[in-house]
C-alpha cells in the first residue's frame, strides 16, 4: 500500500446532499478551493457522496489517482463515517486514512448566509486536509461478545425481548423491580382498537417467561451496578427480600388467607388503590412468579414484632415464609443489555383545575382500566367512589400532555385509550359519554375505523381543552354534580356540562428515576427525559453505548403493537451482536512512548478504567488496549507528553487548529 511511504496524495469529496448542503454552501467554490490546497491530488463534488456512485468515485480515485488520504465533506461522522471508511477500504486503502468534514449539521443546516457558511466550510475542509496528512494506518481491535443478555424491566417490552432472545438460544436474565412481571399492560382491561382482553394476550407470555429454560427471572430486584463494555458487561443485581422464598413456595396462597388481617386494609397498588390488600399479597391472580410478598411497611410483625405470625403457621412444613430474609446480590456477566424500563403516568394532581384528589368522582384513566375490568376491584361494575352508577361521563384528553406547564409532548396513546374507555364505559353503564379533545390522533392500523365506530355509538366529541372541573353550580340541573367548563371550539361557544364521573386521560412520562438509570447504564436522555436512541430513524433501538439497546416506552410513549415491534428489534440487534461473537472496536486507544515516560504515574490516577498500570522493572506506565476506552484524558494529563492517542494524535489536532486559523 502507498500509505507508508512516498508523498501524501489527498482526495477531497464535497457532497451536495441534494440541496441540503448545496443550497447554502457554494460547493463548486469549495471544491475548487480544496483542489488548490497542499497535497490535494483530486477534488470533486457530487450530489450524494453516500450513494453507491458517490462511493465508487472514492474507490476509483484511490486506484486510478493513487490517493492515500481521503477527506469527505458531507454530514456528521456519526452518520456516515463507517460508510466512507468502508469505501476507502474497498478501494484498497486503510480505512483510517479518512477524515470527515461535517458541513451539513454543523454548517449548512445552522447558517443562513451563503457567504459565511461557505467561508466556514473552507476553513473546515482546510483543517481536515491538514489533519488527514498526519493519519496513520490502524487496525481495529476485536472484542468477543458473551452470548448472555440482560433485560431490564418485565413489562410487555421486556417480556417480548427476553422471549425472542431466549428462543434464539441465548441465556437471558430478566430483572424486574416489582414483585411480578407484566407491567402496565397487566393493568389494562381491553386493548385498542381490537378490544382483545389485555390479560388474555399477556399472561401466556408471562408464563412462557417463567417456564423458559433460557430465562432467569429475578423479580423484586434492581440492577445496582454495571461495569465493562460491549460484549462483556459485569452486572450486579440486588434482590430485595420478599420474605417468602421462591424456591420453597408452591404458590398455594393459603398464607394470604392466613394473615391476621381478616380484612384487607392496605391500598392495593395494582388496582390503583381502588381496593385493599393484606400485608402479605400477590399483586394479581396471574402474577408471575406466583410467590407472595410481604410488605414490611404494613406487616405487624415487621412494625411491632408482636404478630401471631399466622401466615407462617398456615405455610406449615413448607417453611416458605422467612421473615429473616436478607437482600441478595447476584453478579452476572452479559454481552448485551436491553433496557425496557417503561413509563409512569402523569400525576393528575399537578393539574389542580381538574379536581383530581379533590372531587372523589374524578378518576385517572388507569383507575378506570381497573374499574371496568372483570377481575378488578368491583368485578367490572362501574361504581362511583360516592356510590351509584354514572349517568354521564366526561373524558378529558391531554392531561399532562401537549402542555408547556407540565409535559410538552403528545403521549400518543391517550386519544386511542380514551376512545376505548369511552366505548367500555358506555357498554358497562349505558352512560352518556363526552370526550374533550384538542386534536384527535388516530394514526394506526384500524384506529380511524375505531374512531368511526365510537362516533356511530353516539359518543360526544367536543373539541376544546377543558378549562375546569368544578362543583360550583350555576343552575339546579348542575347541583350535586361535577361541571365541566369548556369552549366547544367547533360550535363556537362556552359550554357547561354536568357529569357524574370525570376521567382524566393522563399522559405518559419518563419514570422518576430515569436519570439515575441513564447514569447507571451510561446512556443519554432526550430533553423530555426519555432514553435517547442513537439515531431517530436509522438506529432507533441502539444507544450511544454499544451493546445497550432500548425497547418500549422508556424511549418514548408508544402503544402495545409499537412496543412489541421495538422490543423485537432490540432483541434482533442484540442477537446480531451475540451471534457474531465479536465486535470490532474503534482503534482510538492511548499508548505510552516508553522511552520518554518519566514514571510520574499521573496518568494512572486519571484513568477511570484502570487501564494503566505501572511496570516496575522499567519504571514506566503501560496501557492495556483492551481496557482503554479511548477518552484521551491521560493523554492531556501526561506532563511529559509521552502518552499519545490513535486517531487523536497531538499532531493531528494541532494540524486541525492550524488549518482552521490559517487565514484568520
Amino acid at each position, binding site marked *: 500500500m502507498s500509505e507508508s511511504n512516498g508523498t501524501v496524495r489527498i482526495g477531497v469529496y464535497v457532497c451536495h446532499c441534494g440541496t441540503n448542503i448545496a443550497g447554502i454552501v457554494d460547493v463548486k467554490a469549495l471544491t475548487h478551493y480544496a483542489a488548490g490546497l497542499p497535497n490535494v491530488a483530486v477534488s470533486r463534488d457530487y450530489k450524494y457522496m453516500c450513494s453507491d456512485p458517490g462511493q465508487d468515485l472514492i474507490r476509483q480515485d484511490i486506484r486510478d489517482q493513487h490517493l492515500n488520504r481521503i477527506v469527505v465533506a458531507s454530514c456528521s461522522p456519526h452518520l456516515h463515517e463507517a460508510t466512507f471508511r468502508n469505501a476507502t477500504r474497498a478501494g484498497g486503502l486503510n480505512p483510517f486514512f479518512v477524515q470527515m468534514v461535517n458541513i451539513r449539521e454543523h454548517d449548512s443546516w445552522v447558517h443562513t448566509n451563503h457567504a459565511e457558511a461557505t467561508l466556514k466550510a473552507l476553513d473546515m475542509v482546510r483543517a481536515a486536509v491538514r489533519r488527514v496528512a498526519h493519519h496513520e494506518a490502524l487496525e481495529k481491535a476485536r472484542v468477543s461478545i458473551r452470548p448472555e443478555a440482560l433485560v431490564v424491566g418485565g413489562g410487555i417490552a421486556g417480556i417480548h425481548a427476553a422471549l425472542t432472545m431466549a428462543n434464539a438460544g441465548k441465556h437471558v436474565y430478566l430483572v424486574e423491580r416489582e414483585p411480578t412481571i407484566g407491567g402496565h399492560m397487566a393493568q389494562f382491561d381491553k386493548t385498542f382498537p381490537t378490544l382483545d382482553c389485555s390479560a388474555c394476550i399477556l399472561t401466556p407470555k408471562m408464563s412462557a417467561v417463567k417456564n423458559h429454560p433460557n430465562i432467569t427471572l429475578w423479580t423484586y430486584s434492581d440492577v445496582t451496578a454495571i461495569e465493562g463494555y460491549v460484549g462483556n458487561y459485569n452486572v450486579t443485581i440486588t434482590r430485595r427480600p420478599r420474605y417468602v422464598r421462591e424456591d420453597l413456595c408452591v404458590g398455594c396462597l393459603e398464607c394470604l388467607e392466613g394473615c391476621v388481617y381478616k380484612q384487607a386494609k392496605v391500598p392495593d397498588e395494582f388496582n390503583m388503590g381502588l381496593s385493599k390488600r393484606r400485608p402479605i399479597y400477590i399483586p394479581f391472580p396471574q402474577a408471575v412468579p406466583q410467590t407472595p410478598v410481604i410488605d414490611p411497611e404494613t406487616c405487624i410483625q415487621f412494625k411491632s414484632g408482636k404478630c401471631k405470625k399466622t401466615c407462617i403457621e398456615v405455610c406449615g412444613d413448607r417453611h416458605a415464609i422467612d421473615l429473616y430474609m436478607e437482600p441478595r446480590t447476584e453478579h452476572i456477566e452479559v454481552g448485551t443489555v436491553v433496557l425496557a424500563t417503561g413509563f409512569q403516568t402523569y400525576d393528575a394532581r399537578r393539574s389542580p383545575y381538574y379536581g383530581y384528589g379533590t372531587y372523589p368522582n374524578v378518576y385517572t384513566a388507569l383507575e378506570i382500566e381497573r374499574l371496568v375490568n372483570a377481575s378488578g376491584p368491583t368485578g367490572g361494575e362501574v361504581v362511583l367512589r360516592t356510590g351509584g352508577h354514572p349517568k354521564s361521563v366526561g373524558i378529558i384528553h391531554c392531561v399532562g400532555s401537549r402542555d408547556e406547564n407540565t409535559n410538552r409532548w403528545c403521549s400518543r396513546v391517550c386519544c386511542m385509550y380514551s376512545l376505548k374507555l369511552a366505548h367500555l364505559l358506555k357498554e358497562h353503564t349505558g352512560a352518556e359519554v363526552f370526550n374533550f379533545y*384538542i386534536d384527535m390522533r388516530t394514526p394506526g392500523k384500524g384506529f380511524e375505523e375505531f374512531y368511526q365506530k365510537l362516533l356511530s355509538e353516539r359518543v360526544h366529541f367536543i373539541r376544546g381543552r377543558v*378549562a375546569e372541573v368544578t362543583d360550583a353550580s350555576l343552575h339546579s340541573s348542575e347541583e350535586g354534580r361535577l361541571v365541566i367548563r369548556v*369552549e366547544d371550539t367547533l360550535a363556537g361557544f362556552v359550554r357547561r356540562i354536568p357529569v357524574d364521573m370525570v376521567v382524566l386521560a393522563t399522559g405518559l412520562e419518563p419514570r422518576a428515576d430515569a436519570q439515575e438509570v441513564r447514569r447507571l447504564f451510561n446512556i443519554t436522555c432526550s430533553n423530555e427525559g426519555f432514553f435517547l436512541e442513537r439515531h431517530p430513524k436509522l438506529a432507533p433501538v441502539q444507544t450511544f453505548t454499544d451493546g445497550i439497546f432500548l425497547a418500549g416506552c422508556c424511549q418514548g410513549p408508544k402503544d402495545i403493537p409499537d412496543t412489541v415491534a421495538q422490543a423485537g428489534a432490540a432483541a434482533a440487534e442484540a442477537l446480531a451482536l451475540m451471534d457474531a461473537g465479536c465486535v470490532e472496536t474503534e482503534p482510538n486507544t492511548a499508548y505510552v512512548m516508553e522511552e520518554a515516560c518519566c514514571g510520574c504515574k499521573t496518568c494512572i490516577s486519571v484513568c477511570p478504567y484502570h487501564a494503566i498500570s505501572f511496570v516496575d522493572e522499567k519504571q514506566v506506565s503501560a496501557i492495556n488496549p483492551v481496557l482503554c476506552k479511548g477518552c484521551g484524558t491521560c493523554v492531556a494529563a501526561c506532563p511529559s507528553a509521552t502518552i499519545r492517542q490513535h486517531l487523536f494524535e497531538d499532531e493531528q489536532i494541532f494540524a486541525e487548529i492550524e488549518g482552521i486559523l490559517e487565514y484568520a
Partner: protein
Amino acid sequence: MERRLKLQKEAEPEWARRISEHPGCEGIFSCLQCGACSGTCPLSIYMDFGPRRIIALVREGFRTAALSSETIWLCASCYACAVHCPRQIHVTDIMYTLKREAIEAKLYPRRLPIPVLAQEFYRAVRSRGKNAEFWVVLRMAVKSNPLILLSMIHTGWALLRTGRLSLHSEHADGIAEIKRYLDMREVA
C-alpha cells in the same frame, strides 16, 4: 344577510408578524386553538369572538376584524387564560396590544364605554399623576352613554354617604417631572 367570505387579499400577514413582535405577543403563532383561554375566561360568554378566535384572527392577519372586536375591550385583565394556556401564550398582553392598536387606528367600537374609560383614565393620570375616580367615571359616562349615569346615581350616593367618594382630585407633587417622563418619546 351578512356575507361571511374572506378573500385572502383581505389578510394582512405583515401586520400579524408585526403584532407578534410586541411584548407578550410572541406566542401567537404557537397557538393550538385548544380553547383553554376562552373556556377559562369569565367574560368570553359575553364576547363576540373570545380570546381563542382573536388569536386566530390576528395570526392570519385579519386586522380590521380583530381591532374592531368587542372582545379585546371586555378583557378585564384577570390573567386566567395566560396561566392556563398550554402554550404559555400571554393572552392578556395580546389583548393590551390590540387595544392600543385599535385606539391608534380608531377602529374600536364607538358605542362601548370601556375604551372611553381607558382614554379618560389615561388623560387624568397624565395631567394629575393620579386617578380621580369620580371625574373619570363621570366623563366616561358623558362621552359614551349618559344613561349609565342613571344606574350610577344609587351607587354614587351610597359611596358619598360612606365617605368613599372624593370629589376632590389629588395631584402628585412631582407632576411636572411625571409629565416630562411621559412626554419623552421612545428611543429607537
